[in-house]
């Protein structure tokens, strides 16, 4: 199997000679591979190490391939052959193998990772491999660091992710050196997003990188590997994301684009974020419904919404009152039932009470104040009075109803039943000036907020200011 690969690489060898020094020299690297592969396999005692070794291998292979790809275009087709053959090579055999071993195989042809002294490359190749080995050393240090941190040493998935990131970075480095930053950034971007997405995505990105310059020959490998990796990833899915998160933190690459912290794959934060987004959506929808929605603060917006709901409920009550056969029936209702209704809304509740004329002194005071102000304004200037009312959220009802109320209330002994919502939301301002109410101006104003009603109250008639 090694000889096959050797031949493959040797084919591409002459092309690689034209490239810069930092690029891979396949022939030397191949001998390096063959030498060190065995040692590599024997070296790791635990399965996880083995897996990590196999995972480490693609990092070298990818630059190799991509460098060849990114090189002269006329090499492109030739490169496809080795890559496709490389991929096709593992596929038939790996069906029978376990996942880890499959990865091992697929990366078997790559340069091995220099595991400290044991797999040191032979000296004459050092010069050629200088650039390449440096990267390898970097990766080795990173991997060791990762292992030392013990984040997810037992987790091939996280190691895969990490290696993917490192590979992306390395790739990016080399891409930039090669003068093809677009591919690198795309690959890096893919890598980063896959860090965010998780297992399958990372595998996909890995093979996206592979498949950047290669033809359909790799596709079957891709799909197969994707399926395999999916099964592998699902095994380690639980600890994967958290491990991945831990992994990204301690690493300190030189030029690597890091996975953003905000994209943490912690399921709790994701759920939290989702919840916040949904709440924001709903708030926006509510903002459109409720008038005066210029508040940016969430709390004030909620206040506005609450007031509006109260106001609407109140309006239903008022309208159901006035439904009862016109003005004549309304007046006594206002005096008795209306007091009910007003008081409950003053207290912020929407439950009608049976007690009549039960008023809290605070509500009275507030309303008389408004009433006085409006009266004053009305004496001066109707326009400003209207403005004041509208600013407070009030408008005037048609005259007929108002006069009916005034005449009715003049009969029945009726103190000021005023109500004002202190938060400037819904208002029901009923001022009944009895004939026996000397001090206050006899202004019968039944006001209902006209926000969405299209000034329905106003169109009915002029302001009903009836002075005794």
């Amino acid at each position, binding site marked *: 199997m090694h000889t096959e690969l050797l031949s493959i690489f040797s084919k591409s060898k002459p092309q690689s000679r034209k490239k810069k020094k930092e690029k891979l020299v396949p022939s030397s690297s191949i001998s390096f591979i063959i030498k060190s592969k065995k040692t590599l396999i024997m070296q790791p005692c635990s399965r996880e190490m083995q897996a990590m070794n196999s995972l480490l291998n693609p990092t070298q292979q990818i630059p190799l391939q991509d460098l060849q790809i990114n090189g002269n275009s006329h090499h492109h087709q030739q490169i496809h052959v080795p890559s496709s053959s490389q991929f096709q090579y593992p596929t038939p055999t790996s069906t029978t193998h376990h996942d880890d071993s499959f990865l091992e195989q697929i990366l078997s042809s790559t340069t091995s990772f220099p595991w400290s002294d044991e797999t040191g490359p032979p000296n004459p190749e050092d010069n050629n491999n200088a650039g390449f080995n440096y990267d390898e050393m970097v990766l080795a240090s990173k991997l060791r660091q990762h292992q030392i941190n013990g984040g997810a040493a037992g987790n091939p998935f996280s190691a895969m992710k990490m290696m993917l990131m490192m590979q992306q970075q390395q790739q990016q480095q080399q891409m930039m050196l090669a003068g093809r930053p677009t591919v690198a950034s795309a690959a890096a971007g893919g890598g980063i997003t896959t860090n965010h997405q998780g297992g399958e995505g990372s595998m996909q990105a890995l093979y996206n990188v592979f498949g950047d310059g290669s033809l359909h020959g790799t596709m079957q490998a891709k799909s197969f590997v994707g399926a395999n990796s999916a099964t592998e990833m699902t095994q380690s899915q639980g600890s994967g994301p958290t491990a991945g998160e831990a992994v990204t933190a301690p690493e300190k690459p030189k030029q690597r684009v890091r996975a953003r912290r905000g994209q943490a794959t912690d399921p709790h934060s994701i759920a939290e974020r989702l919840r916040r987004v949904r709440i924001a959506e709903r708030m926006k929808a509510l903002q459109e419904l409720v008038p005066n929605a210029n508040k940016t603060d969430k709390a004030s917006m909620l206040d506005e919404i609450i007031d509006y709901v109260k106001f*609407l409920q109140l309006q239903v009550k008022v309208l159901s009152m006035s439904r009862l056969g016109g003005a004549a029936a309304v007046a006594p209702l206002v005096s008795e039932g209306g007091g009910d209704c007003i008081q409950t809304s003053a*207290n912020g509740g929407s439950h*009608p*009470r049976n007690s009549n004329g039960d008023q809290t002194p605070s509500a009275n005071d507030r309303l008389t104040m408004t009433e006085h102000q409006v009266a004053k304004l009305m004496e001066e200037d109707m326009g400003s009075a209207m403005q004041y009312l509208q600013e407070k959220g009030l408008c005037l009802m048609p005259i*007929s109803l108002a006069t009916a109320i005034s005449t009715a209330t003049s009969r029945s002994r009726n103190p000021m039943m005023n109500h004002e919502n202190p938060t400037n939301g819904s208002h029901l301002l009923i001022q009944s000036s009895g004939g026996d109410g000397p001090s206050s101006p006899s202004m019968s104003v039944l006001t209902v907020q006209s926000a969405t*009603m299209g000034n329905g109250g106003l169109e009915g008639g002029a302001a009903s200011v009836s002075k005794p």
Partner: protein
Amino acid sequence: VKNPSSSLKSRFITRFLGALTKINAEDPISSPSPTRILQLYRRIKVASNKSMAYSVRSRRIWSRAMLSRFRSRRSAFSGRRSSVKTTNCTTINVTINENKTAKGGLDMQTDELRELVPGGEAMDVCNLLDETAHYIKCLTTQVQVMRKIVDFCHISKKSSM
């Protein structure tokens, strides 16, 4: 594209007018006794809310809660127990409102919203906002329709007078 609010409106209108005519048929409006009128007012209000709730059918949490409340209220109407309960609720409401400060963050407002929207106690904030939006929409429809009816009555009354 069929506008859902218009169909809601038409459904509500038909139901409400039907209920009104029924109420009207039962008792003539001309009797001015206050208690009677109060009773009528309550019935109309309930009829309005009920017809709205029925128009929404059970597609919304608040309508379902409202409907169940109606049904329970009807069953317990004899002893007027429901009204007693409501007075207790209002007294509690007063104390809560007095203690209302801004320090509670959004919890205070969401609690208040829960009280306003029927069936809001058992909803999380996300659904609560959703239900509130729909509830507001239905309430505005209700108010629009009732206002139109009132105006119509006024006009007809004026013309008859």
